[in-house]
């Protein structure tokens, strides 16, 4: 399951996608919009993507993770469009017979996705200001 969606992410489906009778460890990472960054209050985020390339890169990440870590399955769902505070923008699932590999792969996947997949977020503050976030975290 490698998808870009425009409405709420079904996190239970992402988890179910990586669970199997041979994967004793299933890991689900969910990233969502924080309301507060220090003193600043976020109203919502707007995400956009280079759709065809983003899907291609996410599929490549899944394959790289499966070759570099002892894992069996990867699911990645990214939401675009408007995402309100507290809602999930990204869900990553990893299934593995080895729990340590699942943690390592999950951590690597979200780190690498944030660096390599052509998706951008625009931060809309409650102050009325907004800006594209163009710095890698």
């Amino acid at each position: 399951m490698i998808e870009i969606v425009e409405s709420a992410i079904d996190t239970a489906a992402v988890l179910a996608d990586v669970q199997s009778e041979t994967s004793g460890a299933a890991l689900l990472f969910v990233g969502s919009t924080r309301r507060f960054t220090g003193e600043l209050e976020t109203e919502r985020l707007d995400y956009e993507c280079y759709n065809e390339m983003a899907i291609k890169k996410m599929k490549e990440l899944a394959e790289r993770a499966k070759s570099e870590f002892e894992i069996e399955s990867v699911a990645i769902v990214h939401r675009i469009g408007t995402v309100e505070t507290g809602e999930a923008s990204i869900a990553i699932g990893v299934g593995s017979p080895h729990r340590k590999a699942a943690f390592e792969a999950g951590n690597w996947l979200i780190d690498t996705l944030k660096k390599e997949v052509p998706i951008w977020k625009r931060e809309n503050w409650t102050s009325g200001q907004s800006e594209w976030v163009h710095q890698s975290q």
Partner: protein
Amino acid sequence: MIVKLLLFAAAKEIAGAEQMEVSLDDEATIGDLKQFLADKHPSLKDLIDKSTFAVDQEYVRDEKVLYHEAEVGFIPPVSGG
């Protein structure tokens, strides 16, 4: 030759367009395209310097030679997740 340039996020906003047809000399590279864009849209220059470019949905370097009707992505620093 003519390449199809796709713009995203701040690049799209600054240029006021999400797509451009750009005429370049034969054997022009990504570096040449960046120079052309910076000359024609000085307000894009800072962002060009921070961005990467893609041809056919693959990241490429400045030396990459373009071809007629190539799809080129102007990729500002990404912020997904």
